[in-house]
């Protein structure tokens, strides 16, 4: 009973049916959110987060499938559902000449159960800006006014589309506190974000979207647990134990993880090992290097992170059924160009160590480390 949001095979297309010039942005999403839960939707740009969120918010109808928010269809039963939800769009504006308190006051008068405007402005830290014209607000202040309007109606369910984009670190923290407080009071929250730390910090559950589908979901710990840890190092060309190398090359010790190599532009070979047993593989590798008197340049060893799980999914390469700019076969370096176009943002990994799937073919299954080993 305490399921607040229920999605069954939800789809959303733009510009007609897929295959007939249309583009399917949401391609069969199932999701349940319980009361008081905070779920974070992650995904690269264009993964379908906002398209999905708009369907749950009732701003757009689903092309197929069933959407229930508080037991009702948010699009058809708009009036009934809207009274109990708060929406912070990724991008929404204000009339430039309006002052902050006038905007909030106008909004409050359109709501069924508005909270006092001064109280809410104080909560988002805009009390001292109440008399200022909206056009004079900074980007971060506008974002906080967005948030103020979203929470003004005492929502039971709150939708936040990238709530902290453009905020300075301090406002980001206070926004997090506000969200946490509301969740503590029983508000259900669905948020999208580009910041992985935000998802880890706030979310009870994370759902990673890719090309219109939820491809991974669970707690941050569960998602990370599915990812192998990584070891990276560089060896000179002459020592590079590449497959088919002639005499003089050195064999790596037997490792449980998956070994990949990649020549580097400035000489040397980048080695990466994706492993489930970081400690043992690292120990073997180090004793092997010690034994042969080798220096493992730029050595890195790291446990799996949410960032890595995210990048593994983001770097899987384009799905040919949905490629929006299909002009025949994809170029040979599709995988690499896709990698560079991914919005890694703060999640950027150092150049020495790249994701274990970096060299993988487009259909490389991200979660099957036991499949192959050296």
């Amino acid at each position, binding site marked *: 009973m305490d399921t607040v949001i229920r999605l069954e095979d939800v789809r959303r297309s733009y510009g007609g049916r897929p295959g007939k010039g249309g583009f399917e942005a949401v391609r069969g999403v199932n999701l349940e959110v319980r009361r008081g839960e905070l779920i974070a939707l992650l995904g690269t740009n264009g993964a379908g987060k906002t398209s999905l969120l708009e369907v749950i918010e009732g701003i757009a109808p689903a092309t197929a499938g069933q959407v229930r928010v508080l037991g009702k269809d948010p699009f058809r039963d708009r009036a009934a559902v809207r009274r109990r939800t708060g929406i912070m*769009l990724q991008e929404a504006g204000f009339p430039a000449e309006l002052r902050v308190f006038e905007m909030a006051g106008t909004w409050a008068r359109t*709501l069924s159960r508005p909270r006092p405007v001064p109280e809410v402005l104080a909560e988002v830290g805009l009390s001292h800006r109440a008399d200022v014209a909206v056009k004079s607000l900074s980007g971060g202040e506008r974002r906080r006014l967005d948030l103020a309007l979203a929470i003004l109606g005492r929502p039971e369910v709150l939708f936040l589309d990238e709530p902290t984009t453009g905020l300075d670190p301090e406002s980001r923290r206070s926004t997090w506190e506000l969200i946490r407080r509301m969740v503590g009071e029983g508000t259900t929250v669905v948020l999208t974000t580009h910041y992985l730390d935000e998802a880890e910090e706030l979310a009870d559950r994370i759902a990673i979207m890719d090309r219109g589908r939820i491809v991974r979901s669970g707690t941050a710990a569960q998602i990370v647990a599915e990812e192998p840890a990584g070891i990276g190092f560089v060896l000179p060309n002459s020592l590079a134990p590449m497959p088919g190398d002639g005499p003089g090359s050195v064999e790596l010790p037997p490792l449980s993880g998956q070994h990949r190599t990649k020549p580097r532009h400035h000489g040397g070979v980048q080695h990466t090992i994706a492993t489930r047993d970081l400690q043992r593989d690292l120990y073997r590798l180090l004793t092997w290097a010690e034994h042969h008197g080798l220096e493992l340049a730029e050595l890195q060893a790291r446990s799996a992170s949410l960032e890595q799980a995210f990048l593994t999914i983001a770097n899987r390469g384009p799905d040919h059924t949905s490629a929006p700019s299909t002009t025949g076969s994809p170029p040979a370096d599709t995988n690499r160009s896709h990698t560079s176009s991914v919005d890694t943002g703060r999640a950027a990994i150092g150049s020495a160590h790249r994701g274990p799937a970096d060299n993988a073919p487009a259909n490389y299954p991200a979660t099957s480390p036991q499949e192959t080993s050296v």
Partner: protein
Amino acid sequence: MTTTTTARSTEFTTALRQIGALARMEATLLRRNKTALINTIVMAPVLVLLLLPVVDDGAVHAAFGTHLVTLMAAFGLIFVAYYNLTTTVVARREELTLKRLTSGELSPTSVLIGTATPAAAIITGQLILTIAAAAAAFELPLPANPVLVVLALVGGLAVFALLAYASSGMTKTVEAAQLTTLPVIFGTLLASGVTFPLQAMPGPLQQIAELTPLAPVIQLLQTGFLGVDQHGEALTFAQTFTAGLVPVLVLAGWCVLGTLATRRWMRWEPRR
């Protein structure tokens, strides 16, 4: 039964409250926008005053007073209800206010009505003042059929507001509205009978003109005030209703067309 009635009336009062909130916001914004303020408050009366010597052709006073009222209604509907509302809707769309409003409790219809309310209030106010002035200066009689006068105003406001919403969809920027609104402005004004009499047109052209949106408004005002048909023949009170039937139907038709056009062309967020 009672519960549904209560629910209905609650829904209605909710909608009124929301429309009021939006109307108040639009009024505040209008006060702060000098250009729009001049367009809405000053433009129509100034045009009427400028045209006064032209239309003062020694006609009987009552007819002249009516002419004044019809001119005021025509300019009000065109500049305030149509042109100004088009620019307002484009501005709200481009600054993403309309998009925000779709995320709240307001229904789209309430948004449209709320946005148009200040314009409607201004036109109504201007018209009442003009009627009062005409009554004082030109012996404008009490309306022969006030119902037709009210229908002219309400129908005219609805039609030109709907045309404004539809036109906003073809208008990329506030500045572009100066061009995109020209066809409706000239088309309706020239065919309205207020700038030159429809009787002067050839038969078929006259019939087409009578089907344009502003013509029935003018016709209803003339019949409503003077109790005459379009040829100036005096009518009984009952006959004024019959005479008003066709213009009312034409206005109703434009309401339907305007609603369809709004659904078809109006956009709630900028095109990307």
